[in-house]
């Protein structure tokens, strides 16, 4: 229905008339403000704790209003930089490497599936679809990684298993189908370009919004992953940040349990154990890159989720 200029104020008036009542609006607003606070406050609280002085923590516990502020937790983090810098680098390498590899693997499959003339399209659709409803489970995955591929304790195990997801392939397929016109590919073919060349030089450059979406999905997934490391990594030099965070708690427990056997005095032990502040500082270091970037990328996420939610 075409809306002429004359109709517009009428419709706006209608929209104004057709609103929830003011008390309802206030009630809804309050609900949302509370819900939003519930989601954000834990992060703010952890930041506050990481900036709280040790003495304040031992006196009044974790508090939103500490008695004394300090940056000691961060300097403690800096003193332990050996492992932290290693883990940070591993996290970066895994995130960047995984995102690039994942983009190529998902996009190439999505493109092939989007070509209506492709002879094996039906077979390929099944290949992508079946894993969505039927998965092999953790045990056989574990055996295949450790006893067939032998990639445990390598960077590969942190990257490969997360690289492809049918969800991403379908989003990209839908995108290529709807926004890359067949005529464009035909014209590329007439000019003598091969399919590979068409994919890399024509299709990918005009699909940047979709690639950005999937790239974000992938990079957040890689940055947040601890599971692969938990299962397959023993080597300390390969711990990503998230796994290091898990290990810190463990090592404290182990230190406390073994202190008497390895002959460490109580004072020495207290000095050696990472403080609560330091743990929270590490959480902050892990979370801040995400928390600061996701509001700007949100629209890409939403567009991805919206396409993905459409029936395949």
């Amino acid at each position, binding site marked *: 229905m075409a809306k002429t200029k004359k109709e517009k104020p009428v419709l706006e008036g209608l929209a104004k008339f057709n609103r929830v009542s003011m008390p309802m609006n206030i009630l809804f607003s309050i609900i949302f403000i509370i819900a939003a606070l519930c989601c954000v406050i834990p992060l703010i609280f952890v930041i506050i704790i990481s900036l709280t002085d040790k003495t304040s923590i031992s006196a009044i516990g974790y508090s939103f209003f500490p008695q004394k502020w300090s940056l000691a937790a961060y300097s403690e983090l800096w003193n332990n930089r050996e492992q932290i810098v290693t883990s940070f680098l591993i996290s970066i390498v895994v995130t960047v490497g995984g995102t690039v590899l994942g983009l190529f693997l*998902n996009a190439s499959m999505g493109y092939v599936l989007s070509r209506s003339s492709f002879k094996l399209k039906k077979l390929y659709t099944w290949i992508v679809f079946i894993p969505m*409803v039927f998965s092999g489970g953790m045990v056989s995955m574990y055996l*295949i990684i450790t006893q067939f591929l032998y990639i445990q304790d390598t960077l590969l195990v942190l990257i490969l*298993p997360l690289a*492809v997801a049918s969800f991403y392939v379908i989003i990209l397929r839908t995108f290529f189908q709807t926004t890359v016109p067949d005529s464009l590919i035909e014209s590329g073919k007439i000019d003598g370009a091969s399919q590979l060349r068409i994919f890399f030089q024509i299709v990918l450059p005009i699909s940047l919004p979709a690639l950005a979406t999937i790239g974000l999905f992938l990079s957040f997934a890689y940055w947040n992953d601890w599971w692969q490391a938990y299962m397959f990594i023993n080597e300390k030099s390969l711990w990503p940040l998230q796994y290091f965070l898990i290990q810190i708690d463990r090592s404290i427990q182990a230190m406390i349990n073994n202190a008497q056997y390895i002959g460490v005095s109580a004072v020495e032990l207290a000095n050696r154990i990472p403080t609560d502040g330091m743990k929270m500082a590490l959480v902050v270091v892990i979370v801040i890159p995400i928390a600061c970037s996701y509001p700007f990328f*949100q629209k890409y996420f939403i567009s991805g989720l919206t396409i993905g939610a459409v029936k395949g």
Partner: protein
Amino acid sequence: MAKVKAAKVKGKKFTFDDFELILLSLPTVIWYLVFSYLPLFGLLIAFKSWKIQGNFFESFFASDWVGFSNFEFFFMTPNAMNALRNTILYNLVFIVLGVVIPVALAIMVSNLYSQKLAKVCQTAMFLPHFMSWVVASYFLFAFMSPDKGVFNSIITALGGEAVDWYGPTSIGYWPLILVIMNIWKTTGYGMVVYLASITGIDATYYEAAVIDGATKWQQTTKITIPLLKQIMIIMTIMAVGRIFNSDFGLFYQVPKGTSQLMPVTMTFDVYIMQALKTGGQISLTSAAAFFQSISGCICILIANAIVSKIDRESAFF
């Protein structure tokens, strides 16, 4: 999904194009074979008495078929039944709340006067989706630490007795805590999905309804919810397919792996992971994993069949 119009090209020979496309997709197809289909084949070890002899395939052929005895052993362990019960009960709660809460919130947020407030709140509520469970466990610990947490500070300040949140005495709180944590983490995501559908609804429906004198509530129940039905069904079918799965991060990292809490935090995935980490018992665990995969697959097929019986349009495939 499977309704692919491949009929047109039938009978034609493979063209050079097809070969190129196959070549282009080869790395991904190999990925699927290794990381999706090989594990599917690996499910068969549930029927074998696993012994390690060289690599995966050598062990596979060296191990003897034992029929269903792994399953018998598995279902005889008391932990298994407990894990089964917990997994299903938690998932039922998650499925219901995972539809009701995000749909309600999405409808509410679309009715807010202030678009700015709606935007800000929505962004804030999306934050937990981007946090890993490991990080979330620290968030929770800041509140629930037995000696330093805020909850206990408040309780003692009010004259109550401090609660040992991670101890065996608080076991009764944990189902609620886990449900809340799950809502906390997933609501923002669900809201985005439903809100996208709501904004996609043609405004003329509402205009016509207003002219006919429909109240806002009637518009919601008669227009918005019916139009959201399909996406709600798809999300539910997907969730039903995962009814035997659970998030290991939620059930293990968030309670910090406390063994005294296991009666309420033990799910299939926790059971399997623990068995894998401690090594051995491959046959027993593989029976659990087989059960998990097959029942999940059956559930999703049944759910889809029921939906498509009632309303063909809404079915997932």
